[in-house]
């Protein structure tokens, strides 16, 4: 009970051996497993983070793409609008020009027609006058009164012609 001898040395050796054995058979395997699990957990977290970052990146990319598509659409629509406006203007202008041409032609035609009619009327009047003159000459009345009558008739005709013009 109260002896201090070689057994102290034996017990010190025992303790050292026990320490080494426990270190080898208890702490080492347990710590190894814990470290491995930690490493695995860490790597998984890292993987998850990387995947998240990747997903975010593609999300941003698609959003940018969508945005681009929207602006492209807007651009195309705007272009089409201006194009259509131009086309519209062109067509309207052309129509106007055509209409103007038609109106002009019609006016010209009307003017020609009128001139032709006037000329015809002139000719007819001349004929009528000649006929009337011939008739008067045939009746052989006084030449002075004839001349007066003739002049009066011509004046009346000219006045008529002015009014119709």
């Amino acid at each position, binding site marked *: *009970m*109260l*002896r*201090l*001898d*070689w*057994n*102290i*040395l*034996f*017990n*010190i050796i*025992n*303790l*050292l*051996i*026990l*320490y080494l*054995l*426990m*270190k080898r*058979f*208890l*702490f080492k*395997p*347990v*710590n190894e*497993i*814990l470290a*491995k*699990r930690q490493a*695995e957990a860490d790597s998984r977290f890292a993987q998850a983070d990387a995947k998240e970052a990747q997903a975010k990146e593609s999300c941003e990319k698609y959003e940018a793409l969508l945005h681009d598509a929207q602006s492209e659409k807007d651009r195309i629509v705007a272009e089409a609008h201006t194009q259509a406006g131009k086309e519209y203007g062109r067509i309207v202008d052309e129509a106007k020009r055509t209409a103007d041409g038609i109106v002009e032609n019609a006016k010209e035609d009307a003017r020609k027609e009128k001139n032709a009619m006037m000329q015809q009327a002139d000719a007819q009047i001349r004929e009528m006058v000649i006929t009337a003159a011939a008739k008067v000459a045939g009746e052989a009345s006084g030449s002075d009164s004839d001349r007066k009558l003739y002049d009066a008739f011509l004046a009346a005709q000219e006045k008529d012609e002015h009014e119709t013009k």
Partner: protein
Amino acid sequence: METLAENLLEELTCEDVFTIPVFGGIGVSESTVMTWIIMAVLVLLSIWLTHGMRVTNISKKQAAVEAAVTWINNFVEDMVGEEGKKYVPYLVTVLLYVATANVIGLVGVKPPTKDLSVTAALALMSIVLIEAAGIRQRGVKKWAKSFAEPMAVIAPINVMEVFIRPLSLCMRLFGNVLGAFVIMELIKMVIPVGVPLVFSFYFDIFDGLIQAYVFVFLTSLFLKEAIE
């Protein structure tokens, strides 16, 4: 009465189990042999417990071992501090050994910690560890200077502490276990049925575990002081 005293004495003495026939015969005491048995039990238990451990999909046994080892490591690490982390395995080993040695009385054998040579060995190891850790951490010069801290006057007390600390560690453990053992033997002799069970809870289990804790706690405390 005489037989009782004789029996008690017989229980108290640590006999030589066998003698190594050199230097005129070195007696190997019961406590040393018991220590071997405890060592074997602890090591075999460790091997069995850590056998077939996996990283994932672990068994209940492995979960329990991991939890226990982590808990006891953290427990000792809290006592010894961050810088004393590398001494934790030794302290845990001592804790497990002393705890096992103290409660082994339950199975009817003599606790090895009842033998002064075992507790002396433990205390010697502790003081060597403490001073070695101090030298390792601070270097010989600073370690030597640390005896004159906080002032030179108390240097003799500090030097004395180097001897007093292991002595108190050794004697505390030895005295507690011996006392508990003697009381338990007396109770067993007086009333062999029923009553010893109740007292055994206190003297063998509670006191045994408390003493193991106290031993490691004080060693950790001194160690922490030495390496700070």
